């Protein structure tokens, strides 16, 4: 604990930010088709500064149309999933809460699978994922609120139930899907992947993502008060119902947007906030930005591995589970060490 105090919490967040920027640039340079670091910086910089191209047109097009959107999406999705995990944990004062708890992920997955089944276009896939994700959350909140007495527990139980309902829905869709085209598309999408990310995907996803991230950043300190419990927070003048609703809506919006572009990517929302809690403590003032940055770093690293480790790409969802689950076991086995 003594050693930890050498770097202030703000300093650590700043460090994460620098690490993220470096990682973004390196990730863009990384890939099967060689683009050097120098060229990467040059191409990125040419958007702002007048730089005479010293790179090939292929390099530029590959970078701007494929690598850059993919890297941006990986960072954004990681950031969003992690931030929504941290938010749900605060709202339900439950350290085990994650984006999956409200059925947000499985609802979105069901919607997307349905859109694929009906042969709807890409935009509709995103729209369906988003709609069903919100529907799922609405259902969970509605059912959870009807549970008398233990509302928080009721909400979580409702989340598990609704998730399971949507999961069986997905299984049914897989059963009736055309095994030639639809089934592989659904299955692959569900595994979670950023393969084939395009500039327009970034444009589509970034609006709901920012709409979730910005209010959460502004309200982050207030989430602390939600963790104290409803009555206590109310006596301190917090409009608990409204604040809780805003946080849930923002977190769900971000989850839905993430699932829409990347499929089911598990564990980020649970593991990364816990890592941030270990490093910076539980105060959301620091926890929220740290979760966002660490989530982006984590998913970016995972995606780099997924792209570059083997000749065939490993779906990102598999990789995050592979890293996330053991890491989480390690974290909980050290529970209670801090302070």
């Amino acid at each position: 604990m003594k050693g930890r105090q050498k770097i202030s919490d703000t300093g650590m967040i700043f460090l994460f930010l620098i690490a993220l920027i470096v990682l973004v640039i390196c990730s863009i340079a990384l890939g099967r088709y060689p683009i050097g670091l120098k060229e990467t910086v040059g191409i990125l910089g040419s958007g702002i500064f007048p730089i005479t191209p010293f790179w090939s047109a292929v390099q530029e097009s590959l970078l701007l149309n494929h690598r850059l959107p993919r890297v941006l999406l990986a960072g954004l999705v990681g950031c969003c999933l992690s931030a929504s995990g941290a938010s749900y944990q605060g709202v339900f004062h439950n350290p085990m809460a994650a984006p999956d708890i409200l059925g947000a992920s499985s609802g979105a997955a069901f919607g997307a699978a349905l859109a694929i089944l009906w042969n709807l276009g890409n935009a509709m896939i995103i729209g369906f994922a988003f709609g069903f994700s919100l529907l799922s959350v609405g259902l969970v909140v509605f059912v959870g609120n009807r549970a008398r007495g233990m509302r928080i527990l009721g909400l979580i139980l409702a989340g598990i139930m609704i998730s399971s309902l949507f999961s069986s829905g997905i299984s049914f869709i897989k059963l009736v899907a055309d095994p030639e085209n639809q089934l592989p598309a659904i299955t692959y999408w569900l595994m979670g992947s950023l393969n084939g990310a395009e500039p327009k995907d970034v444009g589509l996803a970034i609006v709901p993502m920012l709409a979730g991230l910005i209010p959460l950043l502004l309200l982050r300190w207030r989430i602390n008060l939600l963790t104290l419990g409803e009555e206590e927070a109310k006596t301190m003048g917090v409009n608990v119902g409204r604040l809780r609703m805003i946080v849930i809506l923002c977190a769900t919006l971000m989850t839905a947007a993430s699932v829409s572009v990347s499929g089911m990517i598990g564990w980020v929302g649970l593991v990364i906030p816990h890592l941030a809690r270990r490093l910076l403590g539980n105060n959301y003032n620091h926890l929220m930005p740290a979760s966002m940055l660490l989530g982006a770093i984590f998913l970016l690293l995972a995606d780099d591995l997924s792209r570059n480790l083997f000749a065939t790409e490993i779906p990102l969802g598999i990789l995050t589970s592979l890293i996330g689950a053991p890491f989480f076991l390690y974290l909980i086995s050290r529970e209670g060490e801090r302070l």
Partner: protein
Amino acid sequence: MSLEVENLSFSYGENKVLKSITFTAEYGEFLSVLGPNGVGKSTLFRCMLGLLVPSSGAARMDGEDISQMRPEELARRIAYIPQSHTPAFNYTVFDMVLMGTIPRLGRFASPCEPQRKQALEALEHLGIAHLKDRGYQKISGGERQLVLIARALAQQAGVLVMDEPCSSLDFGNKIRLMQTVRKLAEEGYAVIQSTHDPDQAYLYSDKVLALYAGEVLAWGDPRDLINDSLMARLYGVDVEVCRLRDDSIRVCVPVQRVKTKRGTK
């Protein structure tokens, strides 16, 4: 004048929990609310804290109806000190106290230097500044109760409402906590606590409010009101009031086993 409860009644459906309660709590006064479990003490507190709306009558803060006040406005005047508990996440003591500054912060604002100073002053005031960087989950029950009081002080409200502050404390901590609370009352806070211990009313309080079955049995000076017949009605036990040191100290001592029936009317 500060907190005023007038003809306050509250029912959960058919069940009348509080019946026409009337009392006032002045600044600079320590009021103990005495009564067995389930007589409506916490319901009364909830009405005073704006968490429940009375069915009839009203609780007023400086003349304003509490059920009409905005939550942050009420929080600037009344601070609630719950029984020491363990929250889901381990905050540092300082962060915990800092949360008390929220009622005076803007909608999107988070605490800055003035609020940090306020929190630190609250900790220093109670002599627990050395706990500042410790984890709230890792300190003792007595220390936790003090931290919650510090949080209420950081809230800068004139009225402190405490829910059985001594319930989980050992003998020494109980006495130290009561002395601290007594001091706060002398500094000008209106302090209201719920308790089961008539001696706390005798030793530290200015006023006592005895509740039984949702009604006020007695309200006023503990020395006038706490006697064997009141204790028998409240708790069904026989006590004898002992006067020590020329009647400067009074305590209730149980003199008989708990009776099976409430009696001695």
